[in-house]
């Protein structure tokens, strides 16, 4: 229990230290507030504008969550297809990598043209950023399943589905969760990108509006909320991971490396 508390307390302490340094350097170097606002101003905005900021967080959070769920629900089966079929791997995987090199910010306006100003273009933007790490890590996890384990299962006359369910998927689970953790933070970015180009709501929209009006404290307040969303979602995925694969964290290294 004590170690759990300190696991949360340590980064919080460090964050407080950073905020103190931020405040101190603004005072020492006389940084004007139109370049960087003081922490206290940001906190004031957070409190004063809380109802509005909270309301703006909701669409961002929805787009992030929907994008993340889509990344997982489409990414993992896609990885499975890539691993189980050489043809799919040869045709699809390179295209996927290619699609990742296209800057999302550049094509995000297209989604607005296609899908309007609602939630859909933001979800798509979040999904496009979030899916890639899921696919890559799931492919890597599924490909590095111990071949002896596969022989073991085949030797029991297991069919493909049984091998996947009993051996491959659990073996690849740690890698898949690593990908999901990267994905969840990227989907936040994706949602904000979507709001940049086609937004009349959401934290991304707040960001852009406050930059336009030189309301730096508001802008920083939005950034703080975005970071918070990212951290909380990351922790949630980690928590699910602990529930889903308890053997992974608790098993000793020596077991995997063979006795």
């Amino acid at each position, binding site marked *: 229990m004590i170690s759990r508390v300190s696991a949360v307390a340590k980064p919080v302490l460090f964050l407080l230290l950073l905020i103190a340094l931020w405040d101190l350097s603004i005072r020492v170097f006389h940084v004007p507030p139109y370049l960087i606002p003081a922490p206290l101003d940001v906190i004031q905005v957070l409190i004063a504008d809380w109802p509005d900021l909270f309301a703006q967080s909701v669409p961002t959070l929805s787009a992030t969550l929907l994008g993340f769920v889509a990344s997982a629900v489409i990414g993992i089966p896609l990885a499975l297809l890539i691993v189980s079929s050489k043809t799919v791997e040869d045709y699809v995987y390179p295209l996927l990598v290619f699609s990742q090199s296209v800057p999302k910010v550049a094509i995000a306006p297209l989604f607005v043209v296609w899908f309007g100003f609602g939630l859909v273009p933001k979800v798509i933007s979040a999904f496009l950023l979030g899916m890639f790490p899921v696919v890559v890590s799931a492919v890597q996890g599924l490909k590095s399943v111990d071949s002896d*384990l596969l022989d073991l299962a085949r030797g029991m006359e297991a069919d493909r589905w049984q091998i996947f369910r009993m051996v491959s998927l659990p073996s690849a689970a740690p890698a898949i969760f690593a990908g999901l953790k990267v994905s969840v933070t990227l989907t936040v970015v994706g949602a904000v990108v979507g709001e940049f180009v086609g937004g009349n709501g959401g934290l991304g929209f707040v960001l852009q509006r406050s930059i336009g009006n030189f309301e730096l404290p508001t802008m920083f307040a939005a950034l703080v909320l975005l970071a918070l969303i990212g951290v909380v979602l990351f922790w949630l995925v980690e928590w699910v991971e602990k529930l889903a694969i308890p053997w992974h964290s608790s*098993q000793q290294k020596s077991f995997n490396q063979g006795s």
Partner: protein
Amino acid sequence: MTTAIELAGVTKTYRTKQGDVPSLRPVDLAIKRGEVVAIVGPSGCGKSTLLKLVAGLLPASGGAVQVNGAAVTKPHRDVGIVFQQALLLPWRSVLRNVMMPVEVKRLPEAEYLQRAHALLKMTGLSGFADKSPWQLSGGMQQRVAICRALVHDPEILLMDEPFGALDALTRETMNLDLLRIQAETGKTILLITHSIPEAVFVADRVLVMSERPGAIVASYEVDLPRPRNLDMMGDPRFAELARQVRTHFHTQGHLD
């Protein structure tokens, strides 16, 4: 019909991008039902390959593999396999690991659950059914793997250096356990090992393989009485057999 395993002119060549790797020269071999046969040979000579052919995990390049008179073309239920590593799934308890073949083969759960418990008891693991694999020592893990190989009551036990990762003392205990299990169940056992004393101690017959591409170059009947005990390792006949087997490796170079 009393032949459990029969290989007739079986060859194996692995086809790789770097070219062909001939791994088995024509092998002829017949193992009777209830017989314990040990195979020794230098590293990389094709022992695991031979075992995988019998298990149906690999197709032969030539010749015919038969188990209980039926041609082997794919994995089949007449064998249980024990590998060098225990290969227990860490996300399953000891009991669920032992029950895995039952699940895979969709056999009646209740009936085989009893069998699984009986096997765990026979191998001294009664209290560990609900433990996780990593909570067990290496020797215990390997015993779980043996239970798993036996749970669906196959006639043949295929073992690929099952005790190679264990220390010498644990290994002797495991050899005794294996002999006891064999005496109680009458299983046919094909045991691949790097240890000449282990081969002579456990087997009715010791086969010696040559360097890759492997072929069976010698066969020794072990006429030590059963049940065997560790004192027999001091028996002059035991020492003489072990010496004869060892000569093959000195003329070939090394065992491992």
